[in-house]
C-alpha cells in the first residue's frame, strides 16, 4: 500500500498520536510539548487532539521530567518524556542512568519501566557547544537502556511506536537536521523492530555503517563511489543498543572492508563501539583495518565553517572508503 509524504517530525507526531489513541496509559510530557508543539514541532497537533491532561508542558526541570517518568512507569502508566536538546540530559543523568536503567535489575526483576525518552541531537545548525552534542555513548554504556537512532521518517515513526510499546526504558535519539526530511510513510499500521539494522544498499566491495544524519552523507558518498565503480553496501544500524551485529557481520563476511561513520567524537564516540564489536566478531573476515569517521575531539564550535570541519562530511567518508580500498 502506498503512503503519503511525511516529514520526520510529522512521523514522530503521528507515532505518538497513534500510540496515545491505542493505549490510554500513554502520555507525553516535556518542555513546550503542548500548545507550542515542541521546540522542533515534533509534537505538533497532539495538544489539540488529546488535551493538557495527556500532553503536559513541564517546567524546565529535566531531572524530575525523567524521574517522574520512571515513577509513572513503575505504577501503571507508559510515559513518553521529551528532553528538548540531548545536551540537557546532563541535567537528568541520575534519573536516566541510576534510576530508569537500573531499577528493574536492582529490584530483582519484579518491575517494568515502560518509559520512552525522546531527545534531539546533532551538530550542523550553528547551535554551538551546549546544543549540538552526540552523547549516545553515555546512554549505550548503561545496561538496562535500549537506544535507537532513526535516520528516516519511516523509521522515526516505526521505531518510536516500538519504543512506546516496549516494557523497557528506550531512548529515542532524533536528529535536529532530519526533522524536515520527508518520504513516503504508509498510512497502514507498522512497527520497526528494535535491534534490527537496515541494509540501505547492497554491495560487495565495502560496507559503510552510518548512523542517523550520517546516513545522508553516506548515501551521497555512495552515489559517487558507485560511479567510480566501488560497489558499496550501506548499513544503518537504526538501533545502537542492542546493536544488530548479525547484519553487520554478514555484510563484512561479504565485503571484507568497513567504514564506520558516527557523529560522536573520535574518542569514546559510538564509532569505537561498532569498531570494537567488529574486531570481536569479524577480524578474520577483514582485509583492511576498520576505518572510522567521527567528529574531532573538540567542543562543537559556533562558526559554521569551523563546525562543518569538526563533524564528519561526505569528503571524510569518501576518504575513508578510498583508504580501505587501497589496503
Amino acid at each position, binding site marked *: 500500500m502506498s503512503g503519503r509524504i511525511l516529514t520526520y517530525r510529522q512521523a514522530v507526531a503521528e507515532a505518538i498520536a497513534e500510540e496515545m489513541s491505542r493505549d490510554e496509559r500513554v502520555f507525553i510530557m516535556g518542555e513546550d510539548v503542548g500548545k507550542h508543539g515542541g521546540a522542533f514541532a515534533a509534537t505538533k497537533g497532539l495538544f489539540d487532539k488529546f488535551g493538557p491532561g495527556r500532553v503536559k508542558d513541564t517546567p524546565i526541570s529535566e531531572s524530575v521530567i525523567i524521574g517522574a517518568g520512571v*515513577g509513572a512507569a513503575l*505504577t501503571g502508566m507508559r510515559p513518553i518524556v521529551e528532553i528538548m536538546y540531548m545536551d540537557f540530559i546532563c541535567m537528568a543523568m541520575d534519573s536516566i542512568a541510576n534510576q530508569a536503567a537500573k531499577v528493574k535489575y536492582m529490584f530483582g526483576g519484579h518491575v517494568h519501566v515502560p518509559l520512552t525518552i525522546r531527545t534531539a541531537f546533532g551538530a550542523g545548525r550553528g547551535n554551538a557547544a551546549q546544543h549540538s552534542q552526540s552523547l549516545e555513548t553515555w546512554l549505550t554504556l548503561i545496561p*538496562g537502556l535500549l537506544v535507537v537512532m532513526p535516520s528516516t521518517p519511516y523509521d522515526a515513526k516505526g521505531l518510536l511506536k516500538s519504543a512506546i510499546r*516496549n516494557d523497557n526504558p528506550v531512548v529515542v535519539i532524533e536528529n535536529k537536521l532530519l526533522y524536515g526530511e520527508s518520504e513516503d510513510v504508509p498510512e497502514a499500521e507498522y512497527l520497526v523492530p528494535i535491534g534490527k539494522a537496515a541494509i540501505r544498499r547492497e554491495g560487495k566491495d565495502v560496507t559503510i555503517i552510518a548512523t542517523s544524519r550520517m546516513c545522508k552523507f553516506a548515501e551521497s558518498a555512495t552515489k559517487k563511489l558507485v560511479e567510480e565503480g566501488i560497489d558499496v553496501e550501506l548499513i544503518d544500524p537504526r538501533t545502537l543498543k542492542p546493536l544488530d551485529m548479525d547484519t553487520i557481520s554478514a555484510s563484512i563476511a561479504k565485503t571484507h572492508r568497513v567504514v564506520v561513520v558516527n557523529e560522536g567524537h573520535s574518542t569514546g564516540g559510538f564509532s569505537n563501539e561498532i569498531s570494537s564489536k567488529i574486531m570481536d566478531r569479524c577480524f578474520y573476515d577483514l582485509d583492511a583495518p576498520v576505518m572510522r569517521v567521527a567528529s574531532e575531539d573538540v567542543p562543537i564550535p559556533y562558526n559554521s565553517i569551523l563546525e562543518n570541519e569538526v563533524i564528519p562530511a561526505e569528503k571524510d567518508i569518501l576518504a575513508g572508503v578510498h583508504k580501505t580500498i587501497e589496503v
Partner: protein
Amino acid sequence: MGKQLDAETLVDRYKLMLRIRFHEEAIKILFTQGKIGGTTHLYIGQEAIAAGVVAQLRKDDFISSTHRGHGHMLAKGGELKPMLAEILGRADGYCKGKGGSMHIASITLGNLGANGIVSGGLPIAVGSGLSAKMRGTDQITVVSFGDGAANEGNTHESMNLASLWKLPVLFLFENNRYAVSTETSRSMAGSMEKRAAGYDIPFSLVDGNDLEAVHFAAEDAIAYVRSGKGPFVMQGDTYRIEGHYYGDAMVYRTTEEVDTWRMNDPIQRVEKLVVERGVLNETDYQAIRNEIQQQVDEAVAFAEACPQPAIESIFEDVYTEWQA
C-alpha cells in the same frame, strides 16, 4: 494532652519499632561477622517516623525511600526473612540478591524502592503521584528524604512540580541532623518550612522521636494529600544514633551528644508511655521484646540458610523481554 493512640494501635506500632530496631541490631552483628558486603545504613533512632507515618498508609499507597530505608520497608509490610536474605545477598531476598541494603523494593507492597542516590526518590514519587492522579485513584505516595537530600536540585524540582500539578505526594523530611559528617546547620540555609512555603505547600513540624506526635501529624498530612488538594511537607526532627554507615568512626560529633539523644530514644519513650497509660507493664513489654527478638533471630537463621544466587542469574532481569 494531645490525641492518644488506642491501646491496640500503640502496641502494634511498638512491635513494629522493635522489629525495625532488632532488625538493624542483627545487621550490626552480621556486618561485624563479615557476612554483609558493601555498606549498610541503619535506621536506629528514627523508628518513630516510619512507624508513625508509613504504617498508617493503605496497602495500595506507595512509598519511595532512601539509602536508610529498612524501617520504611518494614513499616510498609516488609517481612523480616526476605529483608535479611536480601541484605545477605541471597537468592530468596526481595531483589534476588542483586539490590542489597540500599535497593530493597517491592512493587506489591507499594515500595518503589530504597534509593542509593540522595534525592533520587523524589522525582520518582512525583511520577507515582502523577500516575495516581491520571489513573483517577486516591492512592498517595510518601517520599522520605533527609537533610542531605534537602539541598539537592531534585528536591526543588520535585516540590515545584508536585505543587504546580497538585499531586498526591507527602514529602516526609526526616531531619536526622547529619548528611554523612556534615551537620544540618552547616548544610542547610533557611528552613524546610520556608522552602515549602516558597512552593505554596503546607508544612508541619513534629518531634520525630515521639510516636504519637508523628502519627497524628501524619494522619492530618495524609488526609490532606488524599483529599486531592496537593502535596504536603512534613518534617520530623530526629537523630541518627548510628554513624552514616555501620562502622563510621563518627569523629564529627561528641559522645555526649549521642548520649543525650540515646536518652531520647523513641522506643524507650513508647515503653514509658505504655506503662504510664496502663496498656502494658514491664513484664508485658519484656515478653514482647523477647517475641520480636525471636522473630528476628529466626529471620537471620533463614537468611543465612538461603542459597546464593545462581551465577546464570547475572544476566537475568536486565531487560524485560520484547518481541523484536
